[in-house]
Structures are given as C-alpha cells and as structure tokens.
C-alpha cells in the first residue's frame, strides 16, 4: 500500500468515525441550544463531531487535488521490514492482553517477555531469564506490595495466597520499601552488567 492510498483510506475512516460520533451524540440527548439554559447535553459532542466531519472532508478534498505531500507520495506506507517488527509487536501485545483475561497478568507477562526478548531480540539466555523473572517480580513488589494496587490474576489468584501470607504476616513496612528498592537496584545493576548489545 502506498502513502497515497493510505491517506485516502484514513480520510474515509475519519469521515465514517465522525458520522458515527454524530449519530451517537443524538441518542436521547438534546443537541440544540436550549433557550435560557445554554447548550443541551448533546450540543458539544454533536457540533464538534460535525467539525470533525468537515475537517475530514477537507482532507479528502485535498487528496483529490493533490494539495498535501501525503496525497502525492507513491512511497510504501509501511515497508516490509517495518511491517514485520511492528506487526509482531502489536500481535504480541494483543496476545498479552487476551492472556491477562485468561491466565492473569503475571503468567502472561512471563510469556510475553520471553517471546519478545528471546525470539524477537535474540538475546542471551542469562539476560532473558533475568528479565523474564525480574520484571514480573519487580512489578509485583512495586504494585501489590508497595502501592497495594492489585493487578488482575484471573485463574492464578489462588497461587498468590501463600505470598499474601508472607506479605501481610509481618508488619515491618520499612522492609517493604527497602525490598522494592533493593530489587530495583539489583535489576538495574544486572541490566547494566549484562545488557550490552549483541554483536552483528
């Protein structure tokens, strides 16, 4: 696909999107200026969506007249190499999000990082294992331990009960803070030591 084609498709998409938003903002809402009260509840979204529509139509018009550089460019929109690396990343992210719903965030993170670092990045085993284990541990320590923000665990929830026993069994808060910083320091030190870019 060339940039020129992409520009047309995107303009059509934005026209459709504007129309969809306009339609949606009329659903049970007043789009008019209510006398004595000012704009109704649908006024702001409706007329601004109309503005979006007009701006999209202007882009479409400029595509036909060839006014913008994008509408004249015959360069490929996404090169084959870029498509591979971006496509793989987007695919892995989608898999990660679906994984969070199915097996919780920690297992999904493990698989995601393993896939990305080992298969996309082709890094050494040492650094792969360090990061694949270290990142989820760090995230757990910071969010669940330090900040008390529970992350979604889906079916793996019960695996964490013994961890909670340890976490909340003691009441030395300062140790937690120290633990987080120690993990952080250890991980960054290790990254510094091992994460030199590979040759070739």
């Amino acid at each position, binding site marked *: 696909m060339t940039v020129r084609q992409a520009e047309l498709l995107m303009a059509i998409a934005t026209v459709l999107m504007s129309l969809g938003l306009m339609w949606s903002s009329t659903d049970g809402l007043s789009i008019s200026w209510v006398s004595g009260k000012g704009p109704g509840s649908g006024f702001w979204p409706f007329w601004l969506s109309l503005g979006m529509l007009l701006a999209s139509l202007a882009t479409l018009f400029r595509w036909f007249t060839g006014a913008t550089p994008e509408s004249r460019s015959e360069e490929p929109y996404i090169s084959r190499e870029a498509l591979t690396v971006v496509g793989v990343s987007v695919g892995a992210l989608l898999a990660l999000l679906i994984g969070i719903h199915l097996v919780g965030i920690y297992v999904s993170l493990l698989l995601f990082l393993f896939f990305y670092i080992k298969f996309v990045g082709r890094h050494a085993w040492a650094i792969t294992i360090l990061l694949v284990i270290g990142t989820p541990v760090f995230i757990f320590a910071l969010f669940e331990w330090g900040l*008390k923000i*529970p992350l979604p665990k889906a079916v793996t929830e019960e*695996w*964490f*009960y*013994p961890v909670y026993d340890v976490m909340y069994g003691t009441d030395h808060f300062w140790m937690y803070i120290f633990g987080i910083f120690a993990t952080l320091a250890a991980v960054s030190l290790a990254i510094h030591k091992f994460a030199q870019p590979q040759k070739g």
Partner: protein
Amino acid sequence: MGITRRLFTGIAAAIGMTAMVAGAPGMAAAEWSPKKPVEFIIMAGTGGGADQIARLLQGLIEKKKLSPRPFIPINKPGGSGAEALRYLKDKAGDDHTVLVTLNSFYTTPIIQKDLGVDISTFTPIGRMALDTFLLWVNSDRKEISNLESYVKAVKETGGTWKVGGTGSGQEDSILTAMMEKEFGYKVTYIPFPGGGTVAKNLVGNHIDSTVNNPAEQNEFMRAGETKPLVQFTPERMAAYPDVPTAKELGHDIVYFMQRSINGPPGMSKEAQDWYINLFKTLFDSEEWQTFCKEDGLTCDEWVAGDALATFHTEQARRHKELIEAVGAAAITGE
C-alpha cells in the same frame, strides 16, 4: 534444546508446588477471614464524603490491625455510581469486594433504568452513618434570616435564583426538587463536581444557595462566611441547636444520606458475618464516633445484615416515590 526442556520442566514443577502450597492452608481454616486484599469500592470520586469515609475506615483497619489483609480503596465514580453498581453486580459470589454507598445507591438504578441492577440482591453489611443536609446562604445576604425570608427572596427572582449542587440526579438535586414542589417556586439548578466546589462557589457569591452537608460548610460557617437556615432532620441536631428543622416550621421535608457498607450479590454467609463484625468494631470505636460528631454525621444506631436490607428496601421505595412525585425530568433537567 536440552536447556529449553529442562527449563520448562523446572517451571512446571515450580508452578505445581506453588499450587499445592496454596491449597493447604485453606482447608484448615476454622473461621472465615480474607485471603487476599479486599477491594473497597467507592461509588464516587476522590475527595468526596464517601471517599473520606472509606479512607478513614481503611486507615483505622490498619491502625487497629483488624484484618489480616489490607482494604484497598478503589474509586469507581462513573455514571453517578452506575459504574460501581455494575462492577459489584458482575462480582457476584465474590467474598473480597465491599462497597461504600451514598444515596445514588437507590437513585441511580431508578433514573438509569437500563442499568439492570437490583440493589436488593446485594449483601447488606452495616450502616456506618446517616449524613444530613442543611440549607445554606452566604452571610452577606442580610435580608435572609429564616426560611420565610428565604422563600420570599427566591420567589422575587422569578426562577433565576441559583442553587448549586453536585449533579443532576444526586441527593441535593432531589432535595432541591422537593423544596421547589413544597414552596411552589422555580430555581436554576447548577451542578458542580463535588460538594467542596459548591461550598466555594457559595462563599464566592457565584450561586445563591445550596443544600450542602454539614462537613462541607462547617468551616465557612465558623469563619462567618455562610449561615444555615433550615435543617432537614426530624429533630434538631446537637451541633445546630439554633437552626430550626423544616418539620418544626410546618413543612414535611426530611431527607437523609446513608453511608453503608454492602457486598456483592451472593457473598458467603461466613464472609458477611466477618465483615459485619469488623465494621461493628469500627462503628463502636472512639475514632469513628469522634469523626461523626465533628462532621455532623448521625451515628447513634448500628444497623446491620437483614435489618439493613429492610432499611434499603424502605429507602429505595421512598426514593422511587420522591422521584415520581417531583418527576424524573425535574431532577435530570432537560
């Protein structure tokens, strides 16, 4: 290849062991207690009354070490509490989620009919307090000294009297609609995000009157910036011995805001009992009673479990009547 297989075997073994360890302590447990952090859902945004209460309770639970797992306050303010109610409904059968309510617990399912939430299915735990409302005006309004002069002033403006509130469909908008009906005047209701902002706009004379909670106006009253005219309680509160109730003046307007704790539908009996015990301890604590007194809350009577369910049914019915009487349109505007 060998490394990969060995690694995977190792991971599988580790997971298996964790699962076994996880299973063990659950069986021996005699009395129920939370096994993971408890989600403490607040059906309003940060900084509001419900939020303050939730954070105070969370702090007290930790200070007194009442729970083996922490309570984690999570704000779900979307759609006047609709987001929180839907969330709780979807959590049916969960023993680790509780909700702090305000009156949108009753009104939101009535006004937003397609929400599909029936609050009578929720598990009642305990009522922590009743919040009250007073009618406030700026102290600069020398001509207004009581309800009578207030009604006269409102009527003279012919509908341009500006009443600030926290949003159409919220408690204060219902109370405002009740007053419109009782006194036969019309006002312009202007919503602001949060009771604090409403109070500030009254002090700055951007609005003419409000029906704030005591906590939101007390400091301004002490500084002489605003004054209360009427309270909407059955009897005068100890904190305002000189302010008459609407009832004394012959107008039957009594309105409360309940602050209660509720669980999702189908919470286990053991968990419900545990939470009732926990919040009863908090309710009786000196800290909570002091907070109630300072904030003008009524915390005389502990209502829990089935008694709270009865209270909810009664309140929901009353709100339905109120909304029908004043008309949903009068509350939601447009």
